[in-house]
């Protein structure tokens, strides 16, 4: 039957194709290892930069839009070449860019009149990218390396990666640390969960007398200092390092940070509990 002849012909073509394909060098391409950030691997500045580079081209997805010198894609700012962000931008602004990318709208000034870049930058610390703080800092170290000297030290990365393991009295200087805060609403619940009001009051918010009124301290001190107070063991205050999760810590700090900017709340006149040395 002619149909059989046709089928045979078809089989011959397909067979020939498969045969030719097998003559080409055969190679199975395996997926690369998933990168997990390991603070223990961070020893030198080069380590930091290397990790940052891997993240930039890998899980950070930065290279999807940003070029590092050379030509521009027009989709978003070039991070090298004419625009050496490493030596140009402050850390605070970098952090804002990562976490609130649309707080400042970058314009393309090579255009006349200037116009917005085509792409919108996503929040880097949230899914799907979800970089942690030490990872973000390594990326910035990599960007610094791309245009000048690196000013980020491995110690800072390690400190950020292990917030509970800070040596007492040797927390990183406040202006070098990126402090990220969590969710204030959950923080209030956490505050209640750990029954801080058992010892502390905050201005008009009733609480116990064993510890001092938190409001003046909250207004005066930096968040990092308050963090130290909660998580380091001192004579007056037990350490909550082991008891709280990192998320709970961030939430509580966010909640407490709200008091810094709140309007003045009257403290109960003259009532300041004595503290037994040290403490806040």
């Amino acid at each position, binding site marked *: 039957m002619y149909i059989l002849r046709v089928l045979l012909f078809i089989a011959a073509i397909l067979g020939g194709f498969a045969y030719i394909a097998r003559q080409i060098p055969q190679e199975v391409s395996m997926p690369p290892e998933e990168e997990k950030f390991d603070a223990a691997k961070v020893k030198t500045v080069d380590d930091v930069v290397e990790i940052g580079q891997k993240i930039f081209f890998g899980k950070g997805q930065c290279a999807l839009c940003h070029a590092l010198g050379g030509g521009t894609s027009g989709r978003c700012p070039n991070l090298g070449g004419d*625009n050496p962000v490493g*030596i*140009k931008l402050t850390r605070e602004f970098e952090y804002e860019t990562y976490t609130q990318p649309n707080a*400042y709208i970058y314009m393309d000034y090579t255009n*006349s*009149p*200037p116009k917005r870049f085509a792409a919108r930058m996503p929040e880097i610390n949230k899914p799907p990218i979800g970089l942690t703080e030490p990872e973000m800092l390594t990326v910035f170290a990599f960007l610094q390396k791309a245009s000048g000297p690196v000013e980020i030290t491995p110690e800072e990365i390690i400190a950020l990666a292990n917030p509970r393991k800070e040596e007492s009295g040797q927390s990183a200087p406040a202006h070098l640390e990126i402090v990220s805060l969590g969710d204030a609403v959950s923080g209030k619940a956490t505050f209640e969960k750990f029954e801080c009001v058992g010892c502390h009051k905050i201005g008009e918010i009733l609480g116990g007398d064993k510890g001092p009124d938190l409001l003046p301290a909250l207004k005066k001190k930096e968040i990092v200092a308050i963090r130290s107070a909660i998580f380091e063991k001192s004579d007056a205050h037990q350490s909550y390092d082991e008891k709280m999760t990192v998320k709970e810590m961030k939430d509580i700090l966010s909640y407490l940070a709200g008091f810094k*900017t709140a309007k003045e709340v009257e403290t109960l006149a003259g009532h300041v509990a004595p503290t037994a040395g040290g403490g806040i």
Partner: protein
Amino acid sequence: MLFLFVFVGVLGCQPKQVAEGKKTFNKYCSPCHGESGAGNGYNAKNLDPHARDLTDASEPYMAKLSNQEIYEVIDKGGRGVDLAPTMPTFGKVFSEQEIWSLVSYVRTLHPYKGEAVKFDEAKPYNAKRPRSESVTEADFTALMESKIATDEVKADLTTLGEELFDEYGCIGCHKVQGKGGLLGPNLSRAGFMLQPQFIYRWVRNPQSFHPETRMPNLDLPEEDALAVTLYLSTLKDPAFGGDGTGRELAGVVSK
């Protein structure tokens, strides 16, 4: 015969320079002076005084100037010829040839019966752009240490910087707190965003970072640049976004 050759050569060359001048004009000048030179560029409405109307629509101002005078305005800037500082200084950025080409193009924008700009093949203008020295971070650090002895000195320099910002005409291109031009980035948050050493190095020599930038090298002396840097470093206003409009930013954690 030679004269004819030179004559033809001169005339023949004119359009080329005019074309070059036009390219330069469209990139650097049209944002304020407009595509036709009428002083209606997209940045013009932010300028006070307004950008010069180069077409002489209302009065024959440009026609009365000599070529050399126009050259000087471009070369020295408004500040250098006692006019508005918002006309930037281009002498440290453009080559002689470029400025003369610009002049020859500008001449085509308004009715002019005077002498044309001469481009001599035998004695061409210098076509190389002036190169200024790069400024390093170490320069900045050294300057800071030598000039800023006390907090008071710093405060005085900062105040001076604010004045200089207007005097040098920066406000013509940059917006600060709602006032100023659209040509360059909004500087209301310059202190928050930019490292001070970068601000200093950029202000003193923008072309060392970005050779094709529209920001001119205004030839600021060291101290003036330092003052402006200190002033800009104080600008951390969170309410203004980069698109030049004032915007409330929700949820910014102020430090």
